[in-house]
């Protein structure tokens, strides 16, 4: 693990830093994070007994999240970015190696990953599936409320179809409770601090890069 820097250590030069997350990607992450927390709060606090006018906050925040997701989708649809996130054979092999080392109780430690580890890709894809499900079903549910732009139309879909939409939206919301808890837990773990810092400040150090990443799998300047 990387040693913490002493207080009297000179500040890092820009050349010692490697950009892991561009500012626009960090902005997307934190906008999405705030939106998800507001959406969970406005969805579940009234259920838990805290009464307030949650509907307007909920659907306005939902629209902000959908806009952010569309922006991220367009930005992510380049070959280089898709390839960085794709779970390939080596990622699966890395995960199996950790399982094998655990079962054998040897000191096999995790191999160096590319820009993202198997676990990071997996949690990204899990969040993508769940948040997109919530966003698509939430967008459909906007038809059922009055907004400045349209009048509600509860008969746009059949009762049976609305039922499926509500089940999927609710299931996604419930799954997000578990997933957000775990995401925050992993972000706070000491060995993950470099990744959390990179999502705040954007960079990791060259020493952290050498320690955690395979330069063949994540090539940086």
């Amino acid at each position, binding site marked *: 693990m990387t040693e913490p820097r002493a207080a009297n250590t000179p500040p890092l030069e820009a050349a010692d830093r490697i950009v892991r997350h561009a500012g626009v990607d960090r902005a997307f992450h934190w906008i999405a994070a705030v939106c998800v927390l507001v959406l969970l709060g406005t969805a579940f606090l009234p259920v838990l007994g805290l009464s307030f006018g949650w509907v307007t906050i909920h659907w306005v925040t939902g629209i902000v999240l959908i806009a952010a997701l569309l922006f991220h989708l367009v930005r992510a649809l380049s070959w280089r970015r898709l390839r960085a996130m794709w779970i390939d054979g080596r990622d699966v092999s890395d995960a199996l190696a950790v399982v094998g080392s655990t079962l054998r109780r*040897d000191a096999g430690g995790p191999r160096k990953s590319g820009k993202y580890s198997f676990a990071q890709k997996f949690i990204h894809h899990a969040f993508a599936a769940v948040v997109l499900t919530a966003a698509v079903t939430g967008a459909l549910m906007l038809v059922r409320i009055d907004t400045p732009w349209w009048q509600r139309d509860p008969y746009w879909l059949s009762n049976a179809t609305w039922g499926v939409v509500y089940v999927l*939206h*609710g299931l996604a919301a419930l799954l997000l409770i578990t997933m957000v808890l775990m995401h925050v837990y992993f972000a706070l773990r000491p060995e993950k601090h470099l990744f959390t810092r990179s999502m705040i400040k954007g960079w990791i150090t060259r020493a952290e890069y050498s320690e955690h990443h395979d330069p063949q799998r994540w090539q940086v300047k």
Partner: protein
Amino acid sequence: MSRDVYGRETLQGMSWDLIPVFFWLGCALIVAHALYRAFLAPKKR
């Protein structure tokens, strides 16, 4: 589940009684991982 005006069973959505289930599931997974890291995870190469 509920019944519509024609008496047919229709889906209403997820039961919010499940909120504590998903909350405690998250807590249980966190504790499980913390124990794994403390006692079972392979040490670094």
